[in-house]
C-alpha cells in the first residue's frame, strides 16, 4: 500500500514515543556464541567489564520512533517504525552535545524529549558527561538503563 504520510509538522498526527519508550540496545554474543539482543543493558556493568583500553562492543540505539497515521488512495494505516542506528559514533554525531544535558543519574534530555536508555560512546569532543570526558583517545560508553 502506498500512502500519503501525515507526519510531524504537517497536521500533527505523529505521536513520538519518547520518554521511557526509548532505550538502548546492545548487541553481543552470549556464552553459546549466539547473537543476542540485549535491551537496556546496564552500561555501568559494561564499563566495569570493559576497561577503557579494551575493545569495546558496539552500542546500538534504537527506539520505536513514531506512530504515524497515513492515508492512501484506499487504505488507512498507522505506521510503526523502529529506528536502528548503527554504532554509537554515528549516533553521537547526530546528537548535538549542546542538546545533551545530564539531569540526573538516569535521565537525559534531548531537545525537549526525554530519553531513557540512551547509550552513546566513541570518540568525541563532547563536554564532560557524568564527570567523565569523552576524549578522543579514551572511550567511555555512557548510558542509562
Amino acid at each position, binding site marked *: *500500500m502506498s500512502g500519503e504520510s501525515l507526519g510531524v509538522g504537517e497536521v500533527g*498526527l*505523529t*505521536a513520538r*514515543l519518547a*520518554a*521511557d*519508550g526509548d*532505550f538502548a*540496545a*546492545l*548487541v*553481543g*554474543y*552470549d*556464552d553459546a*556464541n549466539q*547473537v*543476542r*539482543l*540485549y*535491551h*537496556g*543493558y546496564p552500561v555501568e556493568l559494561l564499563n566495569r*567489564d*570493559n576497561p577503557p583500553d579494551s*575493545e*569495546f*562492543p*558496539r552500542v*546500538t540505539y*534504537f527506539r*520505536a*520512533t513514531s*506512530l504515524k*497515521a497515513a*492515508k*492512501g488512495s*484506499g*487504505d*488507512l*494505516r*498507522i*505506521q*510503526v*517504525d*523502529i*529506528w*536502528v*542506528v*548503527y*554504532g554509537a559514533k554515528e549516533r553521537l554525531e547526530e546528537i548535538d552535545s549542546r542538546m545533551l544535558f545530564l539531569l540526573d543519574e538516569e535521565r537525559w534530555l534531548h531537545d525537549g524529549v526525554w530519553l531513557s536508555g540512551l547509550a552513546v560512546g566513541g570518540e568525541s569532543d563532547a563536554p564532560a558527561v557524568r564527570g567523565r570526558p569523552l576524549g578522543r583517545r579514551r572511550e567511555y560508553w555512557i548510558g542509562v*538503563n
Partner: protein
Amino acid sequence: MRTRFRGSTAPALRALPEALLPVAGDFAGITSDAVVEVIETSSPAGRMYRGPGGQMYRASAPGQPPASPTGEYPGSWGTTEPEIRGKRVRSSAATDRTIGPRLEFGDPGPPVIAPRPHGRPAIPIAAERIKVRMRELRP
C-alpha cells in the same frame, strides 16, 4: 546473564534489523488492537438509522469514532508484514477498507462525510502500551 563480547560485533549489528522484525509486528498488533478498542468502546451519539438487517442503530456523531453495528469495519483492522526499510523496521496497523481514510479524515463527498477519527486517537493509547512492552523486553 553475563554478556561477553568477543571480536567484532559487526555480524550482530547486521542481524539487528532482522531481530527487530517480530518486535515491530508485535507493536503493530498493539496498535491495531488500540484502534479496534477506540471504535468498540465509543458510545455513538448520532442519529438513529435502520441497519442492513432492519434493526435500528445509532450512528456516530461527527468527531466521534465510527459506529460499528456489525463489527465488520473494526474486524478489518490488522497488521502488515514487518519489513526492513533502511534504518527502519516497519510494520503497520492497517485496514484496506476504502471507507477507512474517509472516516478518519472526512470526505468532501458526495456523499459528505465528517471526520470520525479513530486511528489518531489510538496512537497515544498504543504508544503507552508499547512503552510498557519495551520495558518488558529488557533482560
